[in-house]
């Protein structure tokens, strides 16, 4: 049993339920001698972030941008094996990292968002290391077994 078990319970656990992020100390800074970007401040957009679990289930980490279609309810993943538990955790944090990545591209001097980004990257790196040690590489440089496990099935498009 690895420490990333109980994906579903963790997602509804207290420690994640309250994780919301409000951008109140907006500090855009100067980028390439251009006027700082302040649209988001004016529109009060993108101010609250879902926790990574909810954001991943919804495909959207930014509460103000989420719009569902025809009442299709996003489902928190319920992984069936230990391997899938850990992979779901990785995909969840990789998603949160990617969402903040796109955000920061447009607003590179948002220190608070950058801090959050770094925190999620740490979480992602830790879990990835653990996964590659037990189940095999996620990227080709992640082979930690004595054999060349990169070629092992299943590949991502195969049912597991």
């Amino acid at each position, binding site marked *: 049993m690895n420490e990333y078990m109980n994906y579903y319970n963790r997602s509804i656990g207290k420690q994640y339920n309250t994780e919301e992020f409000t951008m109140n100390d907006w500090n855009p800074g100067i*980028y*390439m001698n*251009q*006027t700082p*970007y302040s*649209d*988001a401040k004016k529109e009060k957009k*993108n101010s609250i972030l879902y926790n990574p679990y909810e954001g*991943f289930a*919804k*495909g*959207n980490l*930014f509460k103000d*941008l*989420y*719009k*569902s*279609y*025809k009442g*299709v309810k*996003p*489902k928190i*993943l319920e992984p069936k094996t230990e391997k*899938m538990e850990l*992979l*779901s955790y*990785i*995909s969840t944090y*990789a*998603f949160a990292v*990617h*969402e903040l*990545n*796109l*955000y920061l*591209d*447009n607003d*590179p001097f948002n220190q608070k968002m950058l801090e959050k980004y770094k925190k999620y990257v740490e979480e992602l790196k830790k879990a990835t290391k653990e996964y590659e040690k037990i189940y095999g*590489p*996620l*990227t*080709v440089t992640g082979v930690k077994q004595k054999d060349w496990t*990169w070629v092992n099935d299943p*590949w*991502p*498009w195969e*049912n*597991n």
Partner: protein
Amino acid sequence: MFAYQKRLQYPIDIKKKDLKLAKCLLSQYGGPYGELAASLQYLNQRFSMPDGRGKALLTDIGTEELGHVEMICTMIYQLMKGATIEELKAAGLGGQYAQNDHALYPTDASGVPFTITYTQTTGDAIADLESNMAGEQRARATYEHLMDLTDDPDVLQPLAFLRQREIIHYQRFKELKNIYQKELKK
């Protein structure tokens, strides 16, 4: 340089064969508003973005769209798995079988092969970003049509995920366009 990650952006595990739906999903693979066109368009446009923010955003969204190509292909592959020739014929995929067997090939839902003329590049950042915003809206609409066509939760969840991504991409392109428009005025 690109490096592959051996996982999908969002997990897909479809258990029920559905060839007619697979045929419709081809629209998001090799169709005019599909993921392949989006990816190639952004990865191509990034070379002429005026500064680092644009180069980064187009690189990062273009790369994510490649991951979406993989998700769409995965859905088509799993929906068609184990299909007999009779079943393929009945679903209007006889021609697909004749040319490609069970292999994937980027066409639209009617079997028209993918063409690079689906993509747009002008070298003008505002025009390109406007075009990307429209592209994201078209992709969102296509995902809604696809969601209308199924009630299999194994298909609906990843489709709903992909639809949300278009909403985010639209927003980020719009923000960047607004930034550039303001700055270019000076």
